[in-house]
């Protein structure tokens, strides 16, 4: 015989109320767990992928769309910019670095990005195997691409036209995999990187003669340019200079991210409030359950006092009951929340977008646990106090 056995026996007497209180609390914890993990990981990834990029230059359109397509590779581009714009920006003394990004094809949903090795250096990625490309039609694949497609150094791949699966396959222009990147936790993990000239070669085909070749070369474009400023003053001047060009648009990742979070924030806040309301109502249900249990079990409590249980021990037994319910609900809610994160993570992985994993720890989860246990203590406080003040003789006489 021990306190836990007594508490479990008491709980078994009221299975319906017990399960209801646990389910309510578990749902609240699950909702908060889901919001905390998904929001935390998405925020971190968005910030990490944009780190060090001061400006994105692309065709005129939606700035947010430009950021999402050129930086995060989750949206369609706004259009293309002439190659001359890249050269012009590189001559600008206020600009430290310009990294071109050319989109157009994908391999099994992973975007093929024509760029320069500077993009890999920017994210601090290192090769897990092979080497960087030295010629067009060579590619370096991200770790997630390698994991999903099982491609390795020496393998080949043919791009599919467009940014989603299901387009025409460029079988005539296969890429050779020359390098595989180690995991970076950035967008690079989900990209097939190649020289920007590869993208032109795949889409230009073989020119009929030199004249056509010259025309094609003059018309070459890239999708967007990732820009790093040389000085803080550039933030005030370079965007204005870019926007003055009729075909170009400058988008600041920091500003667009702030806008994105403002829009997403409404939904996230709604879910947070929903989860908190669920937790609050479940604790009210827990209080009602414990209070009703106290009424139903007043003779049991009186007899336990008669048998030697002190006031404190009776109160602690009720507290243990409340803590036990909170603990079970916490574990169930955590499991439910992690399962939901895993499902969403799987869905995002299939769409080759962000990586959301149930394995990522968030310190806020600790707070959810602490709040749940503290609230369970609060819910049990009044019933426990009443139980401890019970008049044994009067209660037994009534029974």
């Amino acid at each position, binding site marked *: 015989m021990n306190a836990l056995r007594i508490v479990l*026996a008491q709980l078994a007497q009221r299975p319906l109320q017990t399960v209801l209180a646990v389910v309510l609390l578990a749902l609240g914890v699950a909702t908060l767990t889901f919001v905390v993990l998904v929001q935390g990981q998405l925020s971190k990834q968005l910030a990490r992928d944009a780190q060090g990029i001061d400006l994105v230059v692309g065709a005129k359109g939606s700035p947010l769309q430009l950021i999402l397509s050129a930086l995060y590779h989750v949206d369609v581009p706004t259009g293309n910019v002439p190659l001359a714009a890249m050269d012009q920006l590189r001559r600008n003394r206020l600009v430290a670095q310009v990294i071109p990004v050319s989109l157009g094809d994908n391999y099994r949903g992973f975007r093929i990005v024509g760029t320069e090795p500077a993009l890999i250096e920017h994210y601090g990625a290192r090769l897990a195997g092979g080497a960087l490309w030295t010629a067009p039609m060579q590619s370096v694949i991200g770790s997630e691409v390698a994991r999903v497609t099982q491609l390795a150094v020496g393998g080949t791949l043919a791009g599919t036209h467009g940014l989603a699966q299901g387009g025409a396959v460029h079988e005539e222009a296969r890429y050779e995999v020359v390098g595989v990147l180690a995991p970076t936790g950035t967008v690079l993990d989900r990209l097939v990187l190649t020289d920007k000239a590869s993208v032109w070669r795949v889409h230009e085909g073989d020119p009929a003669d030199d004249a056509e070749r010259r025309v094609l070369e003059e018309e070459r474009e890239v999708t967007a340019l990732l820009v790093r400023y040389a000085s803080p003053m550039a933030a005030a001047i370079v965007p204005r200079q870019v926007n003055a060009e009729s075909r170009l648009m400058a988008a600041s990742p920091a500003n667009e991210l702030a806008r994105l979070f403002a829009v997403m924030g409404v939904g996230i806040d709604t879910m947070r409030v929903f989860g908190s309301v669920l937790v609050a109502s479940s604790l009210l249900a827990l209080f009602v359950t414990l209070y009703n249990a106290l009424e139903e079990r007043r003779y049991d409590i009186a007899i336990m006092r008669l048998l030697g249980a*002190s006031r404190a021990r009776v109160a602690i037994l009720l507290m243990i009951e409340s803590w036990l319910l909170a603990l079970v609900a916490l574990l169930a809610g955590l499991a439910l929340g992690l399962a939901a994160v895993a499902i969403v993570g799987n869905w995002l992985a299939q769409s080759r977008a962000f990586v959301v994993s149930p394995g990522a720890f968030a310190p806020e989860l600790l707070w959810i646990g602490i709040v749940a246990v503290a609230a369970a203590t609060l819910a049990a406080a009044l019933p426990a106090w009443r139980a401890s003040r019970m008049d044994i003789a009067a209660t037994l006489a009534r029974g």
Partner: protein
Amino acid sequence: MLTVRSVAHRYGGRRVLVAPDLSLAAGEHCALVGPSGSGKSTLLNILAGILPPSAGDVALQGEPLYTAPARDDRWRARRIGVVPQRLHLLASLSARDNIRLAQYLAGTHADIREVDRLLAALGVEDRASARPGELSAGEQQRVAIARAIVNRPQVLLADEPTSSLDDANAQKAIDLLFEAARMAGALLVVATHDGRVRARFDRAVELLEPAGERARPLRSAHPERAA
């Protein structure tokens, strides 16, 4: 062993008990008798250590039950076993666990063999795993008695143990209590208004309605042992 001095009790301003001074010895069988409202259950609760009297003192082997030094609940539960009128077995626990609960809460050695020996001695060993709801009234009473004596108390108190029993079963219940008190080596005090069983006790203390007159020790079935 158990002494009662000048005990009276008021409830809501109304006097509900005026008890005679008593001095009860170990092994003695004492019946508290009297009409309804005379305070039998009140006196029993006071003797059980769960109802501080409005006036007077109760002492167990010279140690006061209510005055300083204050006795903790375990001290009381180890020395005084109680069989309440409605038994109040915990419905969620088996017969065996109801008895083990008494050991656990009183802080005595939790020897399950002792519990099983007790169940066997009281004739309910085959019902040890049954919940109270699965036991007959007689079996429930035996389990409640086992619970009251499992800690080998010095005093065994029972409140109206025969109130809902026919003649034959009333006598059996009293036999059982005598046997339980003998096993525990305890003083037995039973509150009863049942005239059928009164004659079986060494000593009967009659309580009168406390309108004014003080209740008094009435008579003894064994005059040589009367107070």
